[in-house]
Structure formats: structure tokens, C-alpha cells
């Protein structure tokens, strides 16, 4: 029973996953165009007049940047990658491939539906779409379909796992599949917030069926989803760090049990802490803000476990490769493999992302940085590095695997990962400092009248970092495009790309069976959400006041 038959993905499975990636990379390519334009604007170099026929404002561009990079690139990449970890981990095809196809095409229709109003400058409300700023109703329909599509794909994974469980009673769910399932189950619960926001408030309001929105309640709904959204971005990267990277580094996973405990804690704790985005909101009692601050501290814990387990796995690999002394194992890691270097560098950037995160979460400390450039500096270390750079690293083996073609240039890939690292260090440091000095986020600082001279050096560093990041993003896109349509097919078995699957030091089957048992965790998760959100939801919904008419920006 413990033998592991190999499973070769069928052609149609590979092309299904590839379709996800294609949309993801196109979104990244377009979304990333605006990053440097924003960063250049900060130091007074304004390209927007040149874009006028297509892009009419800084904010139309910023909406595209946020939506395409943070919502579309991530969601399409994640659903595609987790399709792979489901099938390949369980070594069986999807139970209902048609269901997953329906989910995918629902997301595509949603994407196109939301893209049209954004491109027509009818939805320049940024990716948080806070009312009373109002977008064309198709923007909301489109986002809804993207979320619903991702739900359907998630159901597909769950049905497939259940079928596998029937066929394999008593076997531990393979870690890569397990992590993916946790991600998708958490996502189902988490997205209830924006689902309710959009369906019960924003769509009727945009259609004129109700006269007003309740902006405070909308924020509460939004951040119910908004915080776990960051774990939706992050956990797939963790799947790779735990279940794949140790193998790529030439070693094994240090602890399968702790990896699973960390994933369970993320399920439990991802949702009930969204008020940490609303610390300075007028309509949420300070006591509840404080409780969510403490719960946010708790969710720091599984990330600290992850740091230890992943680094120890890497250390073990580095020592196997001949690394000596305290730190001698680090240079022995296979840095020349761009997939590895991308993920290692993403991990280093995430150290700083974590430090910023715990600072943001610290209740009153939030007064110092709320809505400043610091926040933007922070999430470029998390979603745009820990996640996005890891996804780029994964792509360096995944695209050759799916397309059966050799990576166009390893050298470019290596340089690309380092440029992202260096560019991001400069960019994010400048943004953090600007935030501490008081620079607001979501603001074209080049035209703001209150900007003191003191900021100019940092604004310039933002632009320099942004330029380096842009070069890096396009080296990635170019490399992937050349690989995608390359004529150089992988020749013979020795060139074949293998999906990296890390064994663990203690075989997974030795992990306690309880750590594969959903019921208690699901009950706990729902209970904690009810405790942390129930009273405020009752209060805020009970006092709903739909008095804010819409404003078209």
C-alpha cells in the first residue's frame, strides 16, 4: 500500500493547467507595466500624459495594477498550480474534470467581464472597490464570477480528494495535496465576506435597486475576506517551500507533522482577524480591534514554524552537499538553479515582510503606518515577493514540464531572480521609510502639494527600485514566452523535467493520523469565526444604514 506508483499527467491535464498559467502570465505582464510608471511618478517623471488615449489616469492604471497582479495573476496561477498538486499528489485524475473546466471558464468570463469597464475607465475604484466609490456593475459581476469560478475549482479538488480517500483509507494525504486543500477550504470560508458585500449591497446599489450603500459595513465585509486573501496568496508558496523546495535543494522535509500543524493553524486562524485592517475605522469598537490584534499575533506562530522547518530542511540539504560550520551550508545550496534561487530569495524578502506584518498588526502602532506608503512597501515583500517571486521560481520548472520544452534561458532566469531581489530591497525600503515620514499610499506623490524636500531621496529610490523590478518582471515574461512557444522540445528521458516531490525525514505515514482528520479543525474554525466576528456582524448588520449614494471617480 505504501508503494508510490508514478503518475504521468495526461496531455489534456497538462494543457488545462497551462491555460491557467497563460492567463496568469498575461495578467502579470499587463499589470506590471504600471508599477514602474507609478514609481516614476513619485519622483516627478510623469508618463501618464503619453498614455492618454488608452489609460486616462494614474488611478485607472493603479486599478489595473492591483486587480491584474494581486487578484488575477495570483488566482489563475494558484488554481492551476493546485490542480497539479492535487492530481500529482494523489496520483489520480480529477474526479470531475468537467467541473474544474467549468470553474476555470467561469473565472475567464469573470475576468473579461471585469476588464471591459476597467479599460473603459468606468471602474477606477482600485482593487478594494470601497463604496461609495462606484464602478460599472459589470466590474462587480466580473469579480463575483472570478470568485465563484475559484470556488468551483476548489470543489473539484475536494471531490477528487474524497474519492482518493475512499480508495486509500488510512494513508496520509500527500503533503502537497493537503496544503492545497487547506488553501481552497480556507478560501471558501474567507470569500463569504465579499460575496455578501457584492451580492447584497454593491450590485443592487450599482443597479439602482437600492439608493445607498453602508460604507462601514462594506469595509467589514471586505476585510473579512481581505485578510485571508493574503493567505490564499501565501499558502501555495508554502506548499512549494515545504513539499517541493527541500527536494530541489537535494534534501528532505525536516518535519512532516509540523508542516501539517502549520497548515491546520492557517485554516483555523486566517479568517477571524480582519479588523486588523480597520484599526482606525470609526465604526468598529476598539475592544474588538484589540481582540483581532491578539488573534493576528497568533497567526504569526505557524509562519514562524514554517520558517524553522523550511530553513532546517535547507540546512540539512546543504550539509548533505558538503556544507560545514554554522553557515557553510548556505552557499552549498543549488543557487544556480533559478527555481531554487527564486524561492530562497523570496524567503529572505519575506523575513522583512513578516517584520512589517507584525508591526502593522500591533494595534496602536497601526496609527503610525495606516494608509501610508509603508503598507505598499510591506505587501510588495509579501504578495509581490514571497508569493509572486516563488510563483516565478515554480514556473521555471512547471512551464518546461507542462509544455515539454526546455527553459529558453537559465542564465536570464538566474539574473531575473536576483534583480527582483535587489530591486525589491531598494523599492520596499524606500516605501517603508516614506511611510514612517508620513507619505500616503495610493497617491501620485509627484503632484501632491504637501510633499517636503526631505522625502525626495526616498522617492527617487522608489523609482530606481521600480525600474529594476520592471526589468526583472519583463525578463521573466520574455523567458517564459520564449519557452512557451519554443521549438526546442525536451529531447529524451535525460532532459525530462521531474516534478519535485520532497520526502520527509520521518515518512509521512508516521505522522499522527489525527493530523489528517478534518472534522475537529473545521468545527473549530467555524466556531472561532463566529466568536470573533459574530457579535460585530450582528451589531453592524442590525444597524445597517444604506444612505450613501454612489460616486463615479
Amino acid at each position, binding site marked *: 500500500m505504501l508503494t508510490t506508483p508514478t503518475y504521468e499527467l495526461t496531455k489534456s491535464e497538462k494543457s488545462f493547467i497551462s491555460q491557467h498559467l497563460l492567463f496568469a502570465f498575461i495578467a502579470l505582464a499587463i499589470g506590471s507595466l504600471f508599477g514602474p510608471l507609478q514609481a516614476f511618478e513619485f519622483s516627478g517623471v510623469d508618463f501618464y500624459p503619453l498614455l492618454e488615449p488608452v489609460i486616462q489616469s494614474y488611478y485607472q492604471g493603479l486599478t489595473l495594477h492591483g486587480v491584474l497582479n494581486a487578484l488575477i495573476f495570483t488566482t489563475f496561477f494558484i488554481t492551476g498550480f493546485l490542480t497539479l498538486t492535487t492530481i500529482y499528489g494523489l496520483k489520480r485524475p480529477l474526479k470531475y474534470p468537467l467541473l474544474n473546466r467549468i470553474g476555470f471558464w467561469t473565472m475567464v468570463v469573470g475576468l473579461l467581464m471585469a476588464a471591459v469597464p476597467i479599460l473603459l475607465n468606468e471602474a477606477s475604484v482600485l482593487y478594494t472597490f470601497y463604496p461609495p466609490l462606484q464602478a460599472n456593475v459589470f466590474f462587480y459581476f466580473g469579480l463575483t464570477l472570478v470568485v465563484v469560478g475559484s470556488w468551483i475549482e476548489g470543489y473539484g479538488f475536494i471531490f477528487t480528494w474524497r474519492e482518493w480517500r475512499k480508495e486509500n483509507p488510512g494513508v496520509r494525504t500527500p503533503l502537497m495535496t493537503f496544503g492545497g486543500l487547506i488553501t481552497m477550504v480556507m478560501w471558501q470560508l474567507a470569500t463569504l465576506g465579499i460575496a455578501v458585500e457584492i451580492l447584497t449591497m454593491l450590485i443592487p446599489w450599482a443597479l439602482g435597486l437600492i439608493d445607498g450603500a453602508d460604507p462601514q459595513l462594506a469595509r467589514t465585509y471586505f476585510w473579512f475576506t481581505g485578510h485571508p486573501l493574503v493567505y490564499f496568496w501565501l499558502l501555495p508558496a508554502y506548499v512549494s517551500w515545504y513539499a517541493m523546495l527541500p527536494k530541489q535543494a537535494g534534501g528532505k522535509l525536516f518535519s512532516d507533522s509540523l508542516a501539517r500543524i502549520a497548515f491546520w493553524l492557517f485554516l483555523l486562524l486566517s479568517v477571524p482577524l480582519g479588523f486588523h485592517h480597520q484599526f482606525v475605522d470609526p465604526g468598529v469598537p*476598539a475592544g474588538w480591534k484589540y481582540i483581532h490584534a491578539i488573534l493576528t499575533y497568533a497567526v504569526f506562530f505557524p509562519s514562524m514554524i514554517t520558517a524553522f522547518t523550511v530553513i*532546517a530542511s535547507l540546512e*540539512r540539504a546543504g*550539509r548533505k552537499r558538503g556544507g560545514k*560550520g554554522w553557515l557553510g551550508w*548556505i552557499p552549498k545550496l543549488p543557487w544556480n538553479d533559478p527555481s531554487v534561487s527564486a524561492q530562497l530569495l523570496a524567503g529572505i524578502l519575506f523575513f522583512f515582510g513578516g517584520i512589517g506584518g*507584525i508591526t502593522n498588526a500591533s494595534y496602536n*502602532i497601526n*496609527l503610525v503606518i495606516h494608509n501610508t506608503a509603508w503598507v505598499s512597501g510591506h505587501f510588495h515583500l509579501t504578495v509581490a515577493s514571497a508569493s509572486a517571486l516563488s510563483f516565478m521560481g515554480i514556473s521555471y520548472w512547471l512551464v518546461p514540464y507542462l509544455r515539454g520544452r526546455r527553459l529558453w534561458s537559465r542564465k536570464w532566469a538566474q539574473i531575473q531572480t536576483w534583480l527582483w531581489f535587489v530591486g525589491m530591497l531598494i523599492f520596499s525600503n524606500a516605501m517603508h521609510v516614506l511611510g514612517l515620514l508620513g507619505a500616503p499610499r495610493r497617491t501620485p506623490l509627484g503632484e501632491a502639494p504637501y510633499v517636503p524636500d526631505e522625502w525626495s531621496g526616498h522617492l527617487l529610490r522608489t523609482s530606481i527600485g521600480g525600474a529594476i523590478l520592471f526589468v526583472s518582471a519583463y525578463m521573466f515574461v520574455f523567458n517564459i514566452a520564449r519557452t512557451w512557444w519554443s521549438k526546442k522540445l525536451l529531447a529524451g528521458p535525460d532532459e525530462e523535467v521531474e516534478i519535485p516531490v520532497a520526502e520527509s525525514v520521518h515518512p509521512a505515514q508516521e505522522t499522527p493520523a489525527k493530523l489528517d482528520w478534518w472534522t475537529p479543525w473545521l468545527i473549530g474554525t467555524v466556531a472561532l469565526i463566529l466568536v470573533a466576528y459574530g457579535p460585530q456582524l450582528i451589531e453592524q448588520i442590525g444597524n445597517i444604514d444604506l444612505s450613501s449614494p454612489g460616486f463615479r471617480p
Partner: protein
Amino acid sequence: MAVSRRKSKDMEEITSTEEEFHPKGTVLVLAIFVLVLILLWATVYLILLSRGMTTV
């Protein structure tokens, strides 16, 4: 005495090759991380304190 010491040394060798791996490099890396974390977090905390109280 001498015999028993030798014995324990043998045992150590056997275990240290595969199973006994002490992640002391990890400990060092994370110690540095924690120091930086405390330093940066405390910096912002002190900025908070230096900018004066906001009461409700």
C-alpha cells in the same frame, strides 16, 4: 571507564551520520532574524510613543 567511553563514542557516530542532525545553522539564522525583528519593531513602537498620545 575507558571501555564505556569508547562505546558511547561509537554510538554517537552511528546516530550522527543519518538520524541525528542538529539544525544549529537554522538556529543562528533565526536568531539573527529575531534580533532584526525586535530592533525594527521597537523602532516603530518608539516612533509611536514619541508622537504623543491619542485618546478617545
